[in-house]
């Protein structure tokens, strides 16, 4: 049986309290990027409860969450808003809704780099991300990259974990578990 959308969200650790939402809008009022969203967090929560699954998962707005946790600490009903936003991002990636949003490409590039070395390599992450999204956009950022490089802040040397094989086994095993 396919769970309905509200049930899906309720099954995320910390997601069960979404049913307590009173639509007060404190989350949207606290959000640094909500003024740019078509659906602010409050509105997304309303749509989750009415089962508008595709509309929510297809929304660019979930990728505007910067994980600043202001909504999370202010919610008068104790809803872990930021964690629910993460869950929406995961569902959106899993079901390939978010291919056109750059935030999802950053997440994927990040995962590729970390799975390869066990650590993030900032230089490689930036290159991968721009190749995936906008190779020409990378040119715009060359001046900033150059300044950082001249200060020694974008080293090209990469560090791999000593036990990278063990690390990868952990990742593979974790990936076998269902859920998001």
């Amino acid at each position, binding site marked *: 049986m396919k769970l309905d959308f509200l049930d899906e969200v309720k099954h995320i650790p910390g997601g069960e309290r979404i049913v307590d939402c009173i639509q007060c809008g404190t989350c949207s009022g606290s959000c*640094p990027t909500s003024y740019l969203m078509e659906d602010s967090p409050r509105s997304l929560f309303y749509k989750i409860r009415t089962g508008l699954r595709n509309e929510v998962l297809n929304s660019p707005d979930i990728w505007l969450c910067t994980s*600043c*946790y*202001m909504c*999370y600490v202010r919610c008068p009903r104790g809803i872990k808003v930021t964690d629910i936003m993460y869950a929406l991002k*995961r569902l959106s990636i899993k079901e390939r809704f978010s291919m056109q949003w750059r935030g999802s490409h*950053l997440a994927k590039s990040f995962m590729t780099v970390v799975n390869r070395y066990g650590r*993030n390599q900032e230089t490689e992450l930036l290159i991968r991300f721009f190749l995936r999204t906008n190779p020409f956009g990378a040119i715009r950022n060359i001046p900033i990259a150059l300044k950082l490089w001249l200060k020694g802040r974008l080293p090209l040397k990469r560090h791999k974990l000593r036990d990278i094989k063990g690390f990868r086994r952990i990742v593979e095993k974790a990936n076998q578990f269902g859920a998001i």
Partner: protein
Amino acid sequence: MTETYTKEYLYYPGCSLSATSQAYDKSTQATADVLGAKFTELPDWNCCGATAYMGIKEIMALSISARNLALAEKHCKNGHAEIVAPCSGCYVGLVKAHNYMKEFPEMREKVNAALAESDLSYSGSVKVRHVLDIFVNDIGAAKIKQFAINPLTGLKVGCYYGCQIVRPRNEIDDPECPVTMETLMKACGATPVDFSMKANCCGGSIMGTEEWIGLRLSKNLLHCAEQAGVQILVTPCPLCQINLDAYQHRVNKKYKLNVNIPILYFTQLIGLAIGVPKERLGIGDEIVSSARVLEKFFG
């Protein structure tokens, strides 16, 4: 003097500290060394997962974070391991893995099953702490004041906390109006200047994905700090530092401003005050030079 000074901490530098934020790494280690806190690097640590990995698959993000906790537990046989993270993102990531494994038995089982692939397991005994927490609560402002042979008299410092060091947990400080970094700056002889956006978001990784939004958020912060009369900003977060520092000229260009505020790590100013040479603190690594405001303290 309490004995906490000689406690051994497992230092978890995190990925940024070996690249864009080497100055934070250098200044944290050099300063802690003088103040008598012993930092031992956690052997073979891996990425905490940051915010990006959490957007892919939760159980994978938690498992890689938990590998670090398991390594700390293995390294510290007495069961009192304390991991110290200088990066706010790492701090939240490690805390999240720890909390979820305590709170949700089903999660614990799965994560431990993944860790078992590498002969590791995590029982939940590690205490995760932020470097700021160590400086404020273990070393303490009183000790810093005592060591401050080069007081930063007259320097107007804005303390910018950012988000994840105070939220979602509010154990270190108030989630919206934190004040602890100010006590450290005062101990260094500087004058902390209050500004209302000190715990607002700089944009985080959105600077990479939607730069126009990141620039706006950073503009709000820089403008607010400038209006308050801040000469220099200090932060405990690598991502905040790079956003406000490397993108400052773009903020100025886009919003026709003339902000010229150097962004340093709080450990760099503490180091300067307690007489660590500036080369060992990575002062000069910043894009917006701090020489103009710090010159007279270089000695």
